[in-house]
């Protein structure tokens, strides 16, 4: 969202129903040098997504595609240069469930930094099946402690 504020002038987008689990927002900077598009598929179905942009302020530009999912932490997964003489641009990507996509389209070569490094959770702590086992061990431990106190 902080990166969206670098392009604070909101661009009109088609309306959407939040209960479908997908939301999006687009903005352009005051100097019209940067465009941002934020798309979140919070709990919708896996879908394809087509973005059509018209009246681009430039014909040569760069685009970075950032992704947040279970394997990416706001990482750039695609960075491409384009040269479109008709000031239009169309691209598509896979909008999977539980993902957030951020696009920065710019006439410069400077992009917002990627997400901070995430601490890795040890494998044993990622096993959800152990949650109930941990609770059971905690209860047993409490029983032992109380027995000793009594």
């Amino acid at each position: 969202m902080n990166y969206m504020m670098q392009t604070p002038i909101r661009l009109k987008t088609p309306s959407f129903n939040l209960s479908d689990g997908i939301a999006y927002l687009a903005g352009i900077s005051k100097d019209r040098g940067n465009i941002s598009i934020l798309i979140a598929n919070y709990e919708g179905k896996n879908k394809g997504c087509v973005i059509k942009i018209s009246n681009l302020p430039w014909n040569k530009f760069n685009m970075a595609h950032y992704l947040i999912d279970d394997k990416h932490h706001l990482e750039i997964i695609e960075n491409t240069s384009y040269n479109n003489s008709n000031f239009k641009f169309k691209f598509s990507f896979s909008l999977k469930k539980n993902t957030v996509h951020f696009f920065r389209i710019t006439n410069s070569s400077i992009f917002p930094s990627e997400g901070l490094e995430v601490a890795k959770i040890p494998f044993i702590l990622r096993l959800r099946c152990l949650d109930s086992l941990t609770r059971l061990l905690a209860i047993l431990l409490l029983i032992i402690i109380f027995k000793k106190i009594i």
Partner: protein
Amino acid sequence: MKIALVLVFAILAFPPIYPDEIVISIDCNKTDGIIKKFAGINCGPLGQAKGVDLTEQYKQIGIDFIRTHDFYGPTDISSIFPNWNASVGDEKSYNFSSSRL
């Protein structure tokens, strides 16, 4: 034959939009006001356990609003209004000293 050609042309000219596909059309000349900042968060950068200071990370991701209730400390309602039998209209019922850090 002509009808078949027209149909083929129509199919090629107007590819179908699949229901499992969304299309977002953006015109860079059509604006819609200013994007409102919506980066509020619950709990401060020190967390409840106060083990790690995430102040810099909060600044980097643009957090500018923190909801301080359920912080188990200053500004929790139980700290500010400790006696639930007290009068809500009496300013003596409130204690804001814990928020003055």
